[in-house]
């Protein structure tokens, strides 16, 4: 039986009475690339923020590597790399210096590893420039480098291709394939359905905070031309009810 890396059980979140996520249950298995889809405002970032202990769920439970994650105890996240929204950095430090700060949390991360991840995301030439001079795409690459720094077993990416040019998007796709081939589990939230279709094994579709569908990409595509057609049909169905 495959091991669950991430399990969400009846997860809910309300903001001042407004339901952002409602009764969400899903499991991500070791080594898979899991696509998390939904239109704007579906609750994807809210869900990811709860997984990362940034938001307190109104109800339900988050487990990472079989251990509960709460805002009070985020210990299991030490083996998780995350890129959520626009990544934050210290603007007065260089990209490399920002990674050095984070590296202090991980005794195994040394200068060679920092150089390696900067190379992996194509940022080695700009590594010693101050982060405030970076373009949106470069910040996104630095965010990915920070997520990969400590060789996480689970990588959680929220719109990782945001701000990347077509070359950067293709590089990201290759990188995700390499990571999953190395055994890293990827939880990928994206609007780019074509990207998700190409790299993910299973997907879940969230709409207005509720899970509409989940399963292997091949199964969900049955009867649909592509993932986009499936997605449009999935989110249209509850609207018609």
């Amino acid at each position, binding site marked *: 039986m495959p091991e669950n890396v991430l399990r969400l059980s009846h997860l809910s979140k309300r903001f001042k009475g407004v339901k952002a996520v409602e009764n969400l249950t899903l499991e991500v298995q070791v080594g898979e690339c899991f696509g998390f889809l939904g239109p704007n405002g579906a609750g994807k*970032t809210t869900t*990811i*923020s709860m997984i*990362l*202990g*940034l*938001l*307190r769920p109104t109800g339900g439970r988050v487990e990472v590597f079989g251990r509960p994650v709460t*805002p*009070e*105890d*985020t*210990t*299991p*996240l*030490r*083996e*998780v*790399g*995350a890129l*959520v*929204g*626009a*990544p*934050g*950095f*210290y*603007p*007065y*430090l260089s990209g490399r*210096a920002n990674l050095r*700060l*984070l590296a*202090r*949390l*991980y*005794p195994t991360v040394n200068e060679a590893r920092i150089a390696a991840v900067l190379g992996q995301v194509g940022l080695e030439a700009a590594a010693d420039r101050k982060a405030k001079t970076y373009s949106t795409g470069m910040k996104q690459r630095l965010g990915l480098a*920070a997520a990969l720094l*400590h060789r996480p077993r689970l990588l959680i990416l*929220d719109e990782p291709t945001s701000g990347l040019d077509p070359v950067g998007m293709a590089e990201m796709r290759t990188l995700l394939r390499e990571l999953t081939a190395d055994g890293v589990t990827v939880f990928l939230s994206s609007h780019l359905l074509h990207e998700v279709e190409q790299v993910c094994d299973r997907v879940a579709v969230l709409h207005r905070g509720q899970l509409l569908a989940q399963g292997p990409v091949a199964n969900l595509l049955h009867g649909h031309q592509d993932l986009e057609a499936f997605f449009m049909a999935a989110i249209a169905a509850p609207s018609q009810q």
Partner: protein
Amino acid sequence: MTALQTIVALTRTECRKLTSRALLWAEVGIFALIVAGLHLALMAALASSRQQSLPPEALEALKASLRWPQGFLGGLAFAGGSGLGGLFAVVLAAALTGQEYTWRTVHLWLSRGVGRGAYLLGKAAVLAAALVVLAVTAFAAGAAATGIYTLQGSGSLPWHALPWGKALTGIGAAALGLAPYAALTVLVAILARSTLTAVGVGLGYNLLVENMAAKVLLLASPQTARFARYLPAMAGESLLKGIAPGTEVSIGVSGASGAAPLLSPGTAALLLAAYTLAGLALAWWAFQRQDITA
């Protein structure tokens, strides 16, 4: 990594973050210039002909207060919570805490398994060190200015007569006097997730609320004047004057305690520590319950 190792790593990280910023060194430079500049301005005024109208004894006492050893600790008066030190401490605490929200770097740490308590503890430890740096700056700038004045007057410096022990305890007392303001600012920065709001509330409390409350309490009646002693600024002044008496003859900008009896240094220190811990405990409580939105 154990919890202790994480806290040590976070403290080192906070230290690196602070020392890499221009803000700290700009504050230190400006603070030193102001303290030394005000000392030198007073010395120049004393040397001018207009001051010769003062009785000779008063003039000599004033000059002696600006010379070593008496004036050695004079700079510490500026480090008080109600003085310039308080303003610099508020700005530093607000930037150190509030900008983590603006830059979204708080997400960066918390989403990688760093406990919120450990994160705040690392920040508080480095902020405490920064307050000591501010106190040392005020002391050193004042000591340098009064040293020059002494050298000009007598041609030598009385190194043997300098109260180094009092200087050390005075620096600690001044830093403790700044701590409640820093803690209040950290609390506001967390609640508002904003550097500007934290600076505004911190300075507003320091310059308006506390000053006004002190004046009202002092003027209302002798009974209410006794309550004024328990305000952070007055407690800080009690502590500083109690353990480093050289600071009371300086040209500090505080000095609001004229009409109120001072607290004992022990009571004042406990009170300041209690205010600081209360502020940090509230900040910790709010931070633990806070939703960090994307």
